[in-house]
Structures are given as C-alpha cells and as structure tokens.
C-alpha cells in the first residue's frame, strides 16, 4: 500500500497543526530531559539496561510468567480470561454484562482496547462504554481516534472541544479550558457512580503478586476500578513483569520518559476484588489477557524486542517524522516509531510497505527508549523484508534494478569513473526525471563537481612527498 501522500502534505501545510504538534511534543521532550539528566537521575542508563534485561528475560519465558500471574490472581479471588483476539475479549464482556443485566460501563485509557475496537464492538450490541480520560472522552464524542499514545487529543484546540461539547452534549459553546474540564468532570462523575462495570487497561502485570499496575494523572482509572462492583482489566500478554520489586525500575522510567514526571499522580497496584476486611472496591475482578497477534511477534528472535515496549510515547515525541506528519497519518492506533515497527509485524509486511521507509533513521527514538528497543535496526530489517517480498513478487523492478546496477558499477572502478564523467554532462537534465524531480520539489539540486576527487588526485600525480615523521 502506498503512503497517504495527500494527507501527509495536508498535515505539513497546516501551520496550526504543525505548531500544535511541535509545541506539545517539544514540551514533553523538555520535561523528560529535565528528569533524566545526569544530575536528576545519575543511574538513568543503568535503569535502561536493567529494564531491557528484565523484559528480555520475561519475554523469553513468557509462558512461565503468565502462568505464575494467573495462579496468583486466582489465589486473590480474581479470574483470568485468555483472549485470542478482540472478538473474544468483547464477547466476554458482553456476556458478563448480559448476565448481570448491565448496560453501561466506564472505561479508563487503554491503547490495547483501541487496538481491538473494543468500544465499537460493545456498542454494536448496545452496551455503552464511556471513556473517562478527558482526552479520550472528547475523542469519543468527536468520533476520532487518538493522535498520540499519551496525549490523545493533541491535535484539537479549545474551540474544537467547545464545538464537540455543543454538538454532542447540547451545551452552550464554552471555550474556557478549565470550564470544559469541569463539564466533563460533572458528566463523568455520574457515570462512575452509576456504572456496574469499570474497564481499565494495565501498564504492567505483576507475576509474583497477581496484580496489575495502572498509572494516570486524572483519577479516572482509580474511579473506574474502585466505584463499580465489577472491574475488568484488558492487557496484552507482553505487559507482564516478574516481580513487584521490578517496579523500582519500570516506574522510575515510565513517567519520566512519557511526560517528565518522576511518578504520575496516581499509581494503582491492584490485585483482585476487595478483601473481606476492605470496605470498598469491586466484588469481582477479571483480567483479559490478549494475544491478538503478539505470539507472531514473539516468534521472531530479532524482532521480538518490539514487545518490550511500555507505551511511554517518548519515541513519538522525539521522532522528527512524527512531529511533521502527526499521529493520524500512521495506519494503525500505534503511531510513531513503535507503530512503524509493530504495524508490519502485526498486519503483515505486504500491508503498509511504505511505513518502514518513512524514517530518516536518525536514531533519536532508540536513544530515548527506556527499554532500549533497537528501533532503527528493526526498521532496516523490515526494509530488507519489503525488498524480499517485492523481489519474490517481481514487483520492484526499477528500484532493485537501480541498486543492482549501482552495486555493479561500484565494484568496477573503471566503469564508475567513466560513468561519473558522463554524469557531469547529463546532470542538468536529471531534475525533471523521476526521483530527482522529487528532490527538486523541495530543494535546489547541487551541481556535480567539474572535477571529481578521483580526477583531482590523478592530476596532482599521487601522494605528496614525505616531509617528516609519518603518523599513519
């Protein structure tokens, strides 16, 4: 499939959008830098190494830790439901809601639920799923998908929000942000108190404790998991970590990498329904463990490190390409560099073949990834796979031929030199042809040198006479 060229151009030509993306991500970049500097966090690199090692170990022994997690959840009175795909996850929830005669649930932010179109599946069967994270709530009303893993409504202005509220809630147009927040708070409070089910995601699943960890700033996850009588958590199987004490590594990295907060406002460590001695909390707890293709990624030893991701969004913030094209120009809910490497792995390499190439391989993502996923390396691997597929299909004619020719020329120096001297004659015509036309659409074309370095060297008759000691 081809890149969404028109939409990309639109995004780049929209100065308001460009400013919104650039300043929002710029702020997140600065906040992160402040809290991972050598002064603020001297052991930052050690933490990254530890996080990578823990994830590697866990992913390579995933079945063991999932079984341990499951047995501990059950010991605390909860239930684990393995779901092969989004349909199984949604069916479980629909079934449960039907059994309990419940028609509305509240939901806190979960990219995994977006991945499986959870809300849409439920709504088709008339089970209302209310998003309670402010950004997600606004997007739900506006029927849009998230723009960024951590800042979903990054692309909207207060005027957009005002219009959405007016249209969907029937209210007078309110553009003051604080008041907009109060409106949402008021509407959602009622939902929290009435809902029979609360659904959350999970940032981590803790195997030795039978627990999930949910981090947030608003309090909607706490409310969704504490007020309703039933709590359902949805999480990908790769979210598991071995021990509660491993949170010292992951919690010290997650908030800092995502938003520059050493800890987010609320970090909840939840292990099942309320205990007998506790006054409030849910009576029932279910953890839906989702595969949805993760076992496919697991099968590739070089690329399975993609599963280490803790969804901090740092790679998005630092990616110069994301900062120009924005989250909606990626084909899936996961955007930015992490989206670029996992989308082809989940959906097949023949899908969006342009995606691994939409990168200058600058490496900023790998530099900031808290779990040290080698994103540029994986992009190169995916590019190789795309080239293979095209070769097998016989569909990449020109591209492959050009590089084969180039390789041949580059291994035959006399031909290389000969063509080079012709090139300086033909160069003026080139901007109007193919790839060079694309170059010329943005930049002036450099003139080839009148004399190549090879020619210069030949003309000066070789190396200069030795003068003193040779340090070579």
């Amino acid at each position, binding site marked *: 499939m081809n890149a969404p060229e028109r939409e990309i151009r639109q995004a780049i030509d929209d100065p308001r959008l460009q400013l919104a993306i650039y300043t929002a991500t710029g702020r997140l970049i600065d906040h992160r830098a402040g809290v991972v500097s050598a002064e603020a966090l001297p052991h930052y690199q050690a933490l990254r190494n530890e996080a990578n090692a823990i994830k590697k170990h866990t992913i390579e022994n995933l079945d063991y830790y999932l079984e341990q997690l499951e047995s501990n959840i059950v010991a605390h009175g909860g239930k684990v439901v393995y779901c092969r795909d989004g349909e199984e996850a949604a069916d479980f929830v629909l079934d449960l809601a039907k059994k309990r005669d419940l028609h509305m649930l509240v939901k806190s932010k979960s990219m995994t639920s977006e991945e499986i179109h959870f809300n849409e599946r439920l709504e088709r069967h008339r089970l209302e799923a209310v998003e309670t994270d402010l950004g997600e709530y606004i997007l739900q009303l506006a029927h849009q998908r998230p723009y960024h893993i951590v800042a979903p409504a990054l692309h909207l202005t207060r005027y957009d929000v005002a219009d959405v509220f007016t249209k969907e809630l029937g209210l007078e147009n309110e553009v003051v942000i604080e008041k907009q927040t109060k409106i949402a708070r008021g509407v959602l409070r009622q939902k929290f108190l009435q809902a029979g089910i609360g659904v959350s995601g999970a940032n981590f699943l803790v195997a030795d404790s039978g627990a999930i960890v949910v981090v947030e700033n608003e309090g909607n996850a706490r409310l969704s998991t504490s007020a309703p009588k039933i709590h359902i958590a949805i999480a990908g199987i790769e979210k598991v970590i071995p021990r509660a004490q491993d949170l010292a590594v992951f919690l010290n990295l997650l908030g800092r990498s995502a938003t520059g907060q050493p800890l987010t406002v609320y970090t909840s460590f939840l292990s099942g329904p309320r205990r007998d001695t506790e006054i409030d909390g849910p009576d029932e707890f279910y953890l839906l463990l989702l595969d949805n293709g993760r076992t496919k990624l697991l099968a590739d030893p070089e690329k399975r490190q993609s599963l280490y991701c803790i969804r901090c969004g740092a790679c998005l913030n630092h990616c*110069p390409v994301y900062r120009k094209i924005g989250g909606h120009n990626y084909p899936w809910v996961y955007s930015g560099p992490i989206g670029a490497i996992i989308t082809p792995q989940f959906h097949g390499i023949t899908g969006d073949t342009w995606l691994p190439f939409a990168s200058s391989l600058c*490496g900023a993502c790998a530099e900031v990834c808290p779990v040290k996923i080698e994103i540029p390396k994986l992009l190169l691997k995916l*590019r190789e796979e795309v080239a293979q597929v095209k070769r097998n299909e016989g569909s990449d004619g020109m591209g492959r031929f050009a590089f084969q020719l180039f390789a041949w020329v580059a291994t035959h120096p006399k031909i290389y030199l000969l063509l080079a001297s012709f090139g300086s004659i033909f160069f003026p015509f080139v901007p109007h042809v193919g790839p060079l036309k*694309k170059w010329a659409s*943005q930049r002036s074309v*450099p003139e080839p040198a009148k004399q190549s370095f090879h020619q210069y060297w030949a003309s000066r008759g070789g190396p200069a006479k030795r003068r003193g000691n040779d340090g*070579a």
Partner: protein
Amino acid sequence: MSLFVTCIVDQVFPQVGIAMTQVLERLDYQVDFPKAQTCCGQPAFNSGYTEEARTIARHFLNVFRDSESIVVPSGSCTSMISHHFADVFQNDPKLLAEVQALEPRVWEFSRFLLEAAGVEDVGARFDGVVTYHDSCHALRELHIQSGPRKLLAKVRGLTLAEMGAAEECCGFGGTFSIKFPEVSGAMARTKIESIRKTGAATVVSIDSSCLMQLQGVIDRAGLPIRTLHLAEVLASR
C-alpha cells in the same frame, strides 16, 4: 594512511576531500588514495537491498584490506563501515572477522585528528560566526559531539554560535529525501529556522549529505547562509 573520500564527496563535493588532504598533509601525514574505491554501500543497505550492499562492502574490504588507517570525511559512512558491515556480513564468519579487524583502523576525520593525531589546533583561520549541525549517525552511533566543537574552538577568528536543538535530524536520510520529499523538506526547514536564529552565516557539519540537504533548502529559500564541511573550515588559512 588511506583516504576513503565517500562517493558523494568524490562526485559532488571534492573540495571536502581536497581540504581534508591539505589538513592531514600539513600535519605531516603521508596521505594515500586507493583509486579503486567507490562507495561503502550505505544507500543499498538503507533501502533493504542487503545483497547489493554486501557486494559493495566486499569491494570496500578488498580495496582497503592493507590500509593501516582509513580516514573518512563522513559520520554516516564511517558508521556504515564500523557498525553496519557487521550486520551485512552477519552470516559470513570469514568476512565478519575481517570487518572486526578493520574496525579499529577506520576513523571519522575529526576523531582522527583529536585521538590519533592528538591535535586540536591545526592552525586554521576562518573569520565569522559559525553554527554546528550534529549529524545523526555521528552523534548517535559514533558518539561524536564535543570533538568537532573542540576543533572549531581553536580556529582563529571563528565564533561558534550553538543552535537550539542541534541534534534534530536535517531530514536527508538518503532515499528518504526522495521517497518522502515533503517531510524531508519540512524537517530541513525546521532546522534552518534554528540556524537562522543563531545569526550564523555558515553551517558546519562532518557530513556532506546533511550539508547538501541543508544548502538545497537554504538556496530555495534565498537565504544568505552557506554550508561548509569541517574539513574546509580547518583547511582555511
């Protein structure tokens, strides 16, 4: 020692190779230029044509096998040789061993001056305000950041004005600049905005590909800024 000038310098910016030669010869090095050299294979590798990259890389190994040291006026090409040749030959133990033996002998130009020659002051003179662009491979794969700045600090008459977000990519990325020209152009324009704010009339980098990208956008915008390779600045007197 041997020069690997890189295909872009050879064909488009030979003055960079000439400047590099001048600087090294002034330091009394005997400079050699193996004539059979062509390319390091990075364009093929970055496009997923590993087989073709392997062919080109094998030729490189043949040409430079006997060189005591190889100096390269490019962070990205140096990185291709010292970091990615290992990926290209990962299934060929013999060539992999050759690559590993080669790696300590490959030097990016500024690093050669500072660490092999042990020199910070090459006697250069360049009047004006200059800003330095950190090219991505140099910065993130070779960890070259303070080195070029140390060299620039010793250039008489030169004032270094740091740009904000100096580590942001210029948008070249090889075939990326052709496959995604609008994005590439937009990235360069953001970079040029950072450059403009410094008031510098010259942008310096250790990678000609970045400079070509930036100069292309600068010229299209009609700005009075020029781009120079570090070697050219260090060769000026």
